């Protein structure tokens, strides 16, 4: 073998990296998207929209760390996680649109773009946890809670009746396992670090906690697993699992700002292509 650099040798003949297509036009290309007769299409679509919006907004929050993380290595790590979630959002929004086309705003865009860029804040179904912003310790607490909850949820969804959602979940499980691991590592590192880092990490955890109960309103079946994982991480991190009441129900004041940034280009130039 002769190659100009080490990377060429490593990636040679390695088509698996393009497993999800090179055109990126249709994330569900080649999949049978017929909703099984035993599944209610409207409920399925709303559930997928809910899961897709969670991923989309969390992805946007993670992107905020590009150029702002403590180390270059962590910027890349957080961007990677954001891109994993953006991929989940694309699949889930497309799944929602195929299951119930009436959800999609009537604009001449692809279904996923119409859903992402042409809905207003009150039409987003995401949990409020993903809208929040804070310091790095807060972000790690937020990511630990989000990925622990979502990993438990996706693990259960792998055997769901709708084969498309089951496939999306199966792909997501591997990604989320890493996201949880990454966040847990930082929570333990900061919690079990210096008195100052422990104080900041506890403050981050405390600030996230009012938004935890909302996650389990539709997914009480994974609460026990969530509690046991979080308890294990907190013990290793010498942190307290907070006990607090749930925050108010409405979207936080962060969401309109996130959407204004995310949607401005698509709305200004609806005909633009990448």
């Amino acid at each position, binding site marked *: 073998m002769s190659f100009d650099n*080490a*990377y060429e*040798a*490593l*990636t*040679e*003949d*390695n088509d*698996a*990296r393009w497993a999800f297509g090179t055109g990126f036009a249709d994330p569900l290309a080649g999949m049978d998207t017929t909703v099984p007769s035993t599944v209610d299409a409207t409920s399925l679509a709303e559930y997928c929209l809910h899961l897709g919006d969670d991923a989309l907004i969390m992805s946007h929050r993670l992107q905020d760390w590009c150029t702002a993380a*403590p*180390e*270059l*290595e*962590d910027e*890349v*790590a957080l961007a*990677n996680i954001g891109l994993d979630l953006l991929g989940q959002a694309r699949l889930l929004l497309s799944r929602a649109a195929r299951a119930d086309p009436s959800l999609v705003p009537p604009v001449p865009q692809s279904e996923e773009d119409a859903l992402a860029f042409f809905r207003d804040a009150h039409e987003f179904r995401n949990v409020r946890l993903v809208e929040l912003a804070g310091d790095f310790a807060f972000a790690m607490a937020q990511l630990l809670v989000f990925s622990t909850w979502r990993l438990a949820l996706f693990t259960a969804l792998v055997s769901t009746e709708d084969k498309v959602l089951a496939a999306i979940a199966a792909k997501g499980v591997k990604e989320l396992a890493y996201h949880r*691991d*990454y966040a847990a*590592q930082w929570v333990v*590192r900061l919690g079990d670090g210096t008195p100052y880092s422990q104080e900041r990490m506890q403050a981050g955890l405390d600030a996230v906690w009012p938004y935890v109960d909302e996650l389990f309103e539709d997914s009480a079946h994974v609460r026990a697993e969530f509690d046991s994982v979080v308890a294990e991480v907190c013990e290793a991190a010498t942190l307290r699992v907070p006990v607090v009441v749930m925050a108010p129900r409405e979207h936080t004041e962060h969401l309109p700002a996130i959407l204004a940034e995310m949607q401005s280009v698509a709305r200004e130039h609806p005909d633009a292509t990448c």
Partner: protein
Amino acid sequence: MTSWPLYEVFVRGKRCLNHVHVGSLHAADDEMALHNARDLYTRRNEGVSIWVVRASNITASSPDEKDPFFAPSGDKVYRHPTFYDIPDDVPHM
């Protein structure tokens, strides 16, 4: 903030038999170095295995010693195993 130590990263690709040096990174400890290597150097599905090692643990030959180290082997062509045929079914040669 004092900067984290430097690590060197070696990745083995799917079809490669050996780990190849691909670059370096900063990390607070070995475990973080492995995670950072995963995030920085296997984003395009390059690897199936990663090694990381503290750069300070590597003993390297010095450019000043280049001649005494390497020149003496330059004229010993008979050390290359080029004088016999390798059967087709012997892999990785």
